[in-house]
């Protein structure tokens, strides 16, 4: 008996997270019929709530590591260990469902870092095949469609913008106020972090409710800006978006000419389906996209789909999040806004030769970890006993972090492959991450955490802790680089329009095409690029090459 074949469609998008939903909006609005295959459930706002235990500690929204393990090793000579490396929620809306959403733009320099820095030993640093100016119109489209609150012109290092933000900044948290005080005393530029939330009613949604349950929590009010609240409804409104949750794609099959013929997927009951389409768009997140392509082997592509160059899965980057933590005499209430209604600085973002390392990263203030009662902590709090209790009582309301994002350098040997032994609950080999930080990553991390501490000091902190990152653990839930875009098919998987060099009807729109990680939170750029690629597909109707 052969697997059921639902009707053929124009475009099949795999994944309904940030990038998949953005592409779906654009393509359906341009008149294309889209089938979206999303492995996770389609949860509505009624299923979200203010429950720290369930959401932060019990995998209510996070992938359950017993079902979706990954493995990790530092080098090819090591035994991989099972570890939940860089998890991202798997459900309609993807990683945007339970974020607080910092949405800075990349700077113009990010797109030409190799030209700025030159060769950096041990890295595969390159320029992007596209420029800031090419992406700028799509940044604006996303900011306005999605609903971003921010202050145009406030970030002194931002590139030219064609339009301001649709909503003014969110209200000022006390931790953001401290941040402004600190950067002001130091003479550093600071700006309200552009946020995926509404400071005022916008496009039919009321202003975002300022709750304590935000970061790592779903949004019961439907007022935050997420793929689930915005792009999915936009696409559905066209009547051309056939969104199928609980549809886990396990393979893409190719025909004799090397084009993709179908996506093979399985529903929760374990039934298999074969979905045909003219064009296939991968939007699974950079790790899972690489994994799916590696799972899709054929006579034409024995080492994984579109992987003749052996570049698939290489150059993976994850950022790393770490902080300096400050204790203050006056209350900060860092759980207000969930700890992430913030202020930022890009003072140490662009490259500066004199710092002794390449590039830099985004600095912003936040609560300490998830600054809610169960999960808040301090580096020197004992595990148990009266001292631990008294630190909770004294500092829970009086602490905050100034954090940074490490711009980790691309390296050929850092890569995503299939694990040889470990399978997930669906019996498919899991992603194995091989990753060793570059010297540049660690030097940058130290430097930026020191600057974080400077800000806390200048803001009057009575005690400061510095937590230097000494490895990359994937703690940002940011993923990039596994299918680079570039002009040379020998060193990249995709062309400048994110179409596979080797497969005419395959496009990738998540973080996988990013040639470098940059030092900023990636999702605004992921969505802007997805929008750009979707427009390109619509303009060319996914024509065959040549």
């Amino acid at each position, binding site marked *: 008996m052969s697997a059921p074949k639902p009707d053929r469609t124009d475009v099949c998008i795999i994944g309904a997270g940030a990038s998949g939903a953005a592409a779906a909006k654009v393509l359906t609005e341009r008149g294309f019929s889209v089938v979206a295959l999303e492995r996770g459930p389609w949860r509505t706002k009624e299923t979200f709530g203010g429950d720290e235990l369930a959401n932060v500690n019990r995998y209510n929204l996070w992938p359950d590591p017993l079902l979706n393990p990954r493995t990790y090793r530092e080098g090819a000579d090591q035994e991989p260990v099972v570890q939940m490396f860089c*998890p991202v929620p798997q459900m309609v809306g993807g990683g945007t469902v339970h974020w607080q959403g910092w949405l800075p733009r990349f700077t113009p320099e990010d797109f030409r870092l190799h030209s700025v820095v030159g060769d950096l030993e041990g890295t595969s640093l390159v320029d992007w095949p596209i420029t800031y100016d090419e992406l700028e119109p799509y940044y604006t489209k996303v900011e306005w469609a999605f609903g971003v609150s921010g202050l145009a012109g406030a970030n002194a290092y931002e590139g030219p913008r064609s339009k301001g933000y649709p909503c003014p900044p969110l209200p000022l948290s006390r931790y953001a106020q401290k941040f402004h005080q600190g950067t002001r005393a130091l003479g550093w530029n600071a700006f309200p972090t552009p946020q995926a939330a509404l400071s005022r009613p916008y496009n039919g949604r009321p202003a975002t409710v300022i709750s304590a349950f935000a970061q790592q929590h779903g949004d019961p009010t439907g007022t935050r800006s997420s793929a689930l609240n915005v792009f999915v409804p936009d696409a559905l409104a066209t009547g051309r978006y056939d969104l199928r949750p609980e549809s886990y794609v396990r393979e893409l099959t190719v025909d004799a000419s090397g084009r993709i013929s179908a996506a093979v997927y399985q529903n929760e009951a374990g039934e298999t389906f074969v979905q045909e389409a003219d064009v296939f768009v991968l939007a699974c997140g950079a790790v899972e996209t690489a994994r799916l392509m590696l799972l899709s082997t054929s006579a034409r592509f024995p080492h994984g789909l579109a992987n003749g160059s052996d570049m698939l899965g290489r150059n993976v980057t994850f950022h790393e999040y770490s902080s300096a933590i400050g204790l203050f005499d006056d209350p900060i209430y860092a759980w207000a806004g969930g700890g992430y209604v913030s202020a930022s600085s890009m003072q140490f973002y662009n490259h500066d030769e004199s710092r002794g390392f390449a590039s830099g990263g985004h600095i912003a203030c936040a609560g300490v*970890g998830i600054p809610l009662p169960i999960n808040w902590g301090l580096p020197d709090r004992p595990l148990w006993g009266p001292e631990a209790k008294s630190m909770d009582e004294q500092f829970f309301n009086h602490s905050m972090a100034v954090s940074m994002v490490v711009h980790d350098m691309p390296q050929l040997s850092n890569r995503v492959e299939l694990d040889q032994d470990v399978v997930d609950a669906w019996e498919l080999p899991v992603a194995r991450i091989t990753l060793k930080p570059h010297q540049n990553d660690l030097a940058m991390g130290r430097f930026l955490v020191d600057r974080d501490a400077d800000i806390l000091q200048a803001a009057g902190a009575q005690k400061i802790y510095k937590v230097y990152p000494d490895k990359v653990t994937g703690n940002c839930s940011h993923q990039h680089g596994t299918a680079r875009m570039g002009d040379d098919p020998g060193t990249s998987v995709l062309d400048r329009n994110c179409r596979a060099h080797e497969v005419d009807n395959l496009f990738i729109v998540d973080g996988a095409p990013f040639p470098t990680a940059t030092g900023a939170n990636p999702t605004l750029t992921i969505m802007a690029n997805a929008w750009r690629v979707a427009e390109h597909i619509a303009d060319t109707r996914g024509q065959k090459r040549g």
Partner: protein
Amino acid sequence: MSTFFDPHQHDTLAAAMARIIPTTDTPGATEAGAIDFLESYLAGIDRIYAKPDGSGFEALTGRRADAWRRRVEILRSTYVEGIVDLDRRSADAYGAAFVDLDAKQQDRVLTAIERPGESTALNTAQSVSGYAPVEPALQQASVEISLSFLALLALHTRQGFYADPIYGGNRDRMGWKAIGFPGPSSLAEVHTGRYTVIEYFADGSHEQEMEVTRERAKA
């Protein structure tokens, strides 16, 4: 409600929890009912996720239910073995079961089973993890099931002290009161969007802060 632990195990855990978050001039694990939280958690898989409107608990099915059954099984055995170990150490040092020791003796037994490396890894991860959940590299898939007995008990004591009262601990929201967290009066408050903490924001705005910056720069 059915429970997993027998009376001796129950009392031993309750006694250890009373050392982890002790009763001082403010209430501790005992008053907050942390042990009830733990009993409720490990009784089965019926109280893993509260319904977000507070009307009861989710019924787990399929692979999710399988995963939780496995997890609860692993946690139960960590506890059962940990209690045997506590009692053995208590008998060796003081000739009595852990529950019958005085507080100082109990503290010494607990100190002896600490694993400093583990605490440091947990602390560091917890202090920075704003994005992904706290999953320090402990060579295992998940922090909870890979924790040693004491770290697990400390985690669950904390959860029993601070989690939403619907899970059986944090009685009268006393954990929240102790640290000054104005949590919602019920899960329904958050679910309906009535719960807001905007009053804990600063006066003023980003624009005003930045105006001050500009003025100072000019001066």
